[in-house]
């Protein structure tokens, strides 16, 4: 479970992953369950792409094989508390019987 967050006007991407902080590394800093990455500038018409990228002129990347169980999107900044909760409680389906 991974939560990404961006606030209007900032060139920062905030990253939250579950309590187990061993799973996520970035090219910018060491493993941590909460971190932020800053870029020099962002002014983009970028679209979200599921299952790979829409970039055709970069030979160093390829489309991965894998499963997206859910991708939820909010067109607003939910705040740090919400993001931490989202990242720390994965969805699990339990069957109850009468």
């Amino acid at each position, binding site marked *: *479970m*991974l*939560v*990404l967050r*961006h606030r209007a006007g900032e060139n920062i991407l905030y*990253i939250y992953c579950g309590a187990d902080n061993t*799973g996520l*590394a*970035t*090219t*910018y800093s060491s493993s941590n369950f909460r971190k932020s990455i800053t*870029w*020099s500038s962002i*002014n*983009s*018409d*970028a*679209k*979200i*792409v*599921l*299952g*790979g*990228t*829409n*970039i055709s002129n*970069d030979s*160093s*990347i*390829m*489309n*991965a*094989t*894998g*499963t*997206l*169980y*859910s*991708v*939820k*999107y*909010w*067109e*607003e*900044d*939910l705040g740090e508390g*919400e*993001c931490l909760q*989202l990242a*720390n*409680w*994965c*969805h*699990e*389906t*339990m*069957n*109850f*019987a*009468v």
Partner: protein
Amino acid sequence: MTGWEKLPTNITPTEVGTTYDIYATWLERNNVNYNTVLTSNDYSVAEKLLVLKEMSTARDTLSTADLYPVTLGYDGLKPAISLISTPTRYTGTPTVITDYTPFGANKSFTIAIDYRFEHKTSSVAKEAVLLSCYDNTNESVQGFKLFYNPSAVGTPVPQISFGSTAS
């Protein structure tokens, strides 16, 4: 919880000989279909548990061994836009979501991604991307990608980078 605000303000827990069931009132006022609530991601865990409670008291509508799936987890206080309706396995053919521009001017966003990589060992040191957000019309493409390195041995280590595709 949606619907509580519709309850009367003069409610009393116990009336003469009758227990006023505040839960049942909530269900009634929302025209709740049990099955819809239990299988939808639009209802919180609390609401689903509430429905389960109601179902257990309404045994005339149930049969022994009926199963009720309840998905635990946190969905956020505000309703989300689901970019996929069901879990989807990708094998190299991406889907572009054209409806949103997360990094557009004066825009904020939050995205929650539940995912799993399938490790395909490759001697080629490429980055295997499962989800990304780049502007393919901009030469200095900027955005983020969720990827792992297929040339590494062992369980894929998810990585995030933010910036150009080469970052």
